[in-house]
């Protein structure tokens, strides 16, 4: 369904963007600023990076892909489905331990120890098999030395948004979520969190890349669309774009503009 919407939107003028769910709040704001500045339309579809990766391989009509990791964009570049040299690490995701506001557990004070509390019976994380945040959560639990103690409490969300939904609805008692989601107005109001130390897991580096798949659908405006995608990515790289990402919980590695390494 969103395919059709995306495809028709692309023909209308602007660009279509596939984005990881942790950008749900940051990217629309960036796009709004960009649209106001340039008048170009940006339509965004959110979902799991793995899903998008598979869809793009099968010709999904996106112009730009914001993945929740580096691996998917690199693989697309290697497969010739992306514009070479456009890979850009737009930010580093952070993990937080989130509990609902009425939780008896003081996560801010207790940190990891909070998860040992008997009141915490279910802990929601994203599926570590394919979601970057899930892998980071497992790595962090292991480095904190409590993975074995809490493994039986873990429940898996299909992506980080669903993990958030599990805790937010009260069905899970705690969750290892994206800071970018915990900072959303709703989640800020509904709960409290403790920021997992950045060193607890390999950095959640996330990259965007300009796609080639738009050639398939948009025969008449190929160059135009592609330039528009590059222009939007340039805006994301600009100080204004970076400030907005930072505001929504993304940080940057010191050497943010590292060269794109092909696998």
């Amino acid at each position, binding site marked *: 369904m969103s395919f059709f919407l995306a495809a028709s939107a692309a023909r209308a003028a602007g660009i279509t963007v596939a984005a990881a769910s942790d950008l749900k709040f940051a990217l629309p704001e960036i796009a709004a600023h960009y649209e106001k500045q340039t008048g170009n339309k940006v339509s965004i579809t959110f979902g799991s990076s*793995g899903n998008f990766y598979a869809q793009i391989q099968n010709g999904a009509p996106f112009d730009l892909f914001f993945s929740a990791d580096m691996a998917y964009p690199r693989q697309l570049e290697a497969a010739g489905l992306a514009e070479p040299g456009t890979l850009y690490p737009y930010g580093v995701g952070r993990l937080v331990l989130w509990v609902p506001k009425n939780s008896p557990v003081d996560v801010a004070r207790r940190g990891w120890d909070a998860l040992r509390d008997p009141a915490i019976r279910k802990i*929601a994380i994203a*599926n570590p*098999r394919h979601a970057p945040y899930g892998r980071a959560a497992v790595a962090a639990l292991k480095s904190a030395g409590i993975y074995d103690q809490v493994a039986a409490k873990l429940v*898996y969300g*299909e992506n980080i948004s669903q993990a958030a*939904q599990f805790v937010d*609805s009260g069905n899970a008692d705690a969750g290892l979520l994206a800071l970018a989601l915990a900072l959303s107005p709703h989640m800020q109001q509904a709960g409290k969190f403790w920021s997992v130390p950045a060193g607890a897991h390999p950095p959640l580096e996330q990259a965007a890349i300009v796609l080639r798949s738009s050639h398939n659908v948009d025969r008449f405006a190929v160059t135009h669309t592609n330039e528009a995608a590059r222009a939007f990515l340039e805006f994301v790289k600009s100080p204004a774009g970076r400030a907005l990402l930072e505001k929504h919980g993304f940080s940057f590695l010191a050497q943010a503009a590292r060269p794109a390494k092909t696998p």
Partner: protein
Amino acid sequence: MNLQALLLSLRLAAVVSVLLLGISLPLAAWLAFGRWRGRFLLEALVALPLVLPPTVLGFYLLVVMGPRTPFGRLWQALFGHGLAFTFEGLVVGSLLYSLPFAVQPLVSAFRGVDRSLLDASFVLGASRLRTFRRVILPLSFSGLLTALVLSFAHTLGEFGVVLMVGGNLPGITRTVSIAIYDSAQALDYGAANRLALLLLLLSFSSLSVVYAVNRRVWSPWSPR
């Protein structure tokens, strides 16, 4: 091959289809023979899962099972844990999700029973319950089997509701469809393909049974 997920799905489908048959028999009888004028409302309610996306059902289930509703709190008090992320939770979700697949074949089978046979049974002094058991049920055999097999097959292939309330726990809530999705997400297309093919064959055989019975290819009660 993810045998654990397959066995879990078969167990879920078996439990749900048997429970559903028990629930659907009185419900379908009431819908088929009842005289209440507002009956169409109940029929529409029963048919809802056919048209609602599983995400709607799953979303409401997640909310209802949570500690913010009386039902969620009651369950927590009775069993000491929430209903989400448990096998029982999947059973509850599947009962709702597959309800029309059990009720509708039964209703149409019941409605197809010749009225004069029912009159004859009453004239001979049989009670309503006895008439239901001895006349209506045997004559509705193919409807019964259809209801059983369809709700089994539909539960076997259930995805959205399980995804929304399951939490993907191996052996507890990771059903075949979730395992397939998982493998596809992890780009393990080989594993996804093997499980998917197996599910396809299972579903095809179940449906073949339904259509064979309805074509009277095989039926112990119906006249040749």
